[in-house]
């Protein structure tokens, strides 16, 4: 199967961290220390054994809210990337095969699109559809699609230009079969790396949207929402502003490390001796 270099520490750290988040997220589906409508904790109390991270302005347990935030981060991150892969990937593959004026068309279109920041695109879509968890996922997903489309197109083009494709064509292999056994095996490593990175991008985008009040409404409070609510009370309760942000940063770092690790893993396998 796949041999993973034990010295690939980036991948290891990244995966462990990410797995941790995943566990917390899954856990939050079933159990959190306190329920979200439980406002018994007293306003803005400091961390205690009962409430490990204190409580918010409504007396809700912060730790539970942070755990839910983890779930939202993972949900949005992975769903948006999935949309990105499906839509962006398909467009990218088609664009990669394009020739002539279709090729020029795709080039101009995709280059224009990628210059457009994902967040702005997402805001556009949310402005149209209103705020909800699904809107957010869709909006960010479409924004990420442009990245995937461009990358996929470049990858497909570079593979198509290789000689073994010509060889396959000459020996009579059909295009669908070529796509399956030549193109996809050659592009999926890079694809994986980009996907991992985009999970982080999606997470950050969602946080920004939520922070601006354009994200998923409660009870789907993401870390971004928590930060927005913490803003007014940051002086008296700094922890409420630090913890969700820290979680977000660690989340993004973990996927980035994972991405680097994956890249390293595939790079070393293709490394040629001097």
């Amino acid at each position, binding site marked *: 199967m796949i041999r993973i270099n034990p010295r690939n520490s980036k991948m290891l750290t990244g995966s462990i961290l990410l797995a941790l988040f995943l566990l917390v997220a899954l856990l939050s589906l079933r159990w959190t220390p306190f329920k979200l409508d439980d406002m018994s904790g007293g306003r803005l109390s400091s961390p205690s054994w009962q409430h490990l991270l204190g409580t918010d302005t409504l007396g809700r347990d912060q730790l539970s809210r942070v755990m839910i935030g983890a779930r939202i981060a993972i949900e949005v991150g992975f769903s948006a990337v999935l949309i990105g892969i499906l839509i962006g990937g398909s467009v990218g593959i088609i664009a990669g095969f394009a020739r002539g*004026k279709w090729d*020029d068309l795709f*080039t*101009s279109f995709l*280059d*224009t699109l*990628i*210059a*457009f*920041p994902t*967040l*702005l695109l997402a*805001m*556009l879509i*949310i*402005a149209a559809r209103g705020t909800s968890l699904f809107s957010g996922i869709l909006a960010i997903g479409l924004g990420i699609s442009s990245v995937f489309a461009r990358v996929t197109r470049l990858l497909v083009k570079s593979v198509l230009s290789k000689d073994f494709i010509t060889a396959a064509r000459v020996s009579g292999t059909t295009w669908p079969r070529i796509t399956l056994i030549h193109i996809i095996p050659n592009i999926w490593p890079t694809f994986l790396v980009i996907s991992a990175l985009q999970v*982080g991008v999606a997470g*950050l985008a969602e*946080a*920004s949207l939520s*922070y*601006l*009040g*354009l994200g998923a409404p409660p009870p789907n409070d993401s870390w*971004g929402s928590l*930060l927005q609510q*913490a*803003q007014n009370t*940051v*002086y008296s309760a*700094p922890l409420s*502003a*630090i913890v969700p*942000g820290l979680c*977000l*940063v660690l989340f*993004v*770092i973990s996927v*980035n490390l994972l991405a680097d690790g994956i890249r390293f893993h595939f790079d070393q396998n293709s490394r040629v001796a001097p």
Partner: protein
Amino acid sequence: MPGDPSDSLIPIGATPDQIRAAKHLVGTDKPLFFQFTHWVTQTASLHFGNSLTSGSPIAPEIFARLQITIPLTVSAFLIALTLSIPTGIIAARKGSTWYGKFLNYFSQLGIAIPVFWVGLISVYLFALRLNLLPAGGFPSTSWHDPAGAIKSLILPVLTVSFVMGASLTRYIKSATLDVLNSDFLRTSRSLGYSFGKSMWSHGIRNGAAPVISVLGIEFATTFVGAVVVETVFALPGLGSMLVKGIQEHDYSTVQGVLFVSTLIVMISGFIADILQKWLDPRLNKYSQGSLV
């Protein structure tokens, strides 16, 4: 628009001669400028209408708020660029030293941090705890109070430039590494030029090329970052106008702001494109002496 500006001049199915003529035309500045001003005057004459919620005209408000958002974006971008060039080069050349590694980790961190969180933390630290700078807001007299305006913008600018700087550092580091390992640098050294001289004659330009190609996108991202950060610092810029508009379903306002934002994004891409073509002859298919 990004992409070859002559594309809009060429009808589909033009002969190679026509294409060549169109591109040669675009090779000079005049038609570009003409196209650009024509487009700008068209849009400028577009009326944005009035806000659906407040009833007041949108265009003048956008104009007023741009006076906060644009200086914020531009200064943050320039500071980020200025800081990231030496940082990226050091990270590339001295990657094995402790400070090189530190810079690498730092830039890794910088791209993982949401810009508004940095803003939040800096408000907490510098404004509330240390009382050095205002926690937010902008003088109501706007730029007529330059000292107050600048004071209000210091933290936001530093916040955005921190995050953008991390991103730019990574690009510059990668470009520097490519140049350091390049064959043409080796050729220059093989002719007897010192490492420094070779970098100066060949390295800088070749290293700048890939960086310039992303400057357009990075500027657009800086702009978006500025828009977000305005909420942290309660700056009456384009960002708060947009957010309010979306929340109140004020479609006219949203349209107007998004239109202007799109315009800014496209202009920056356009300029970056021109810069790139000026620098890299490989993108100009019809430069002198071409065999093709």
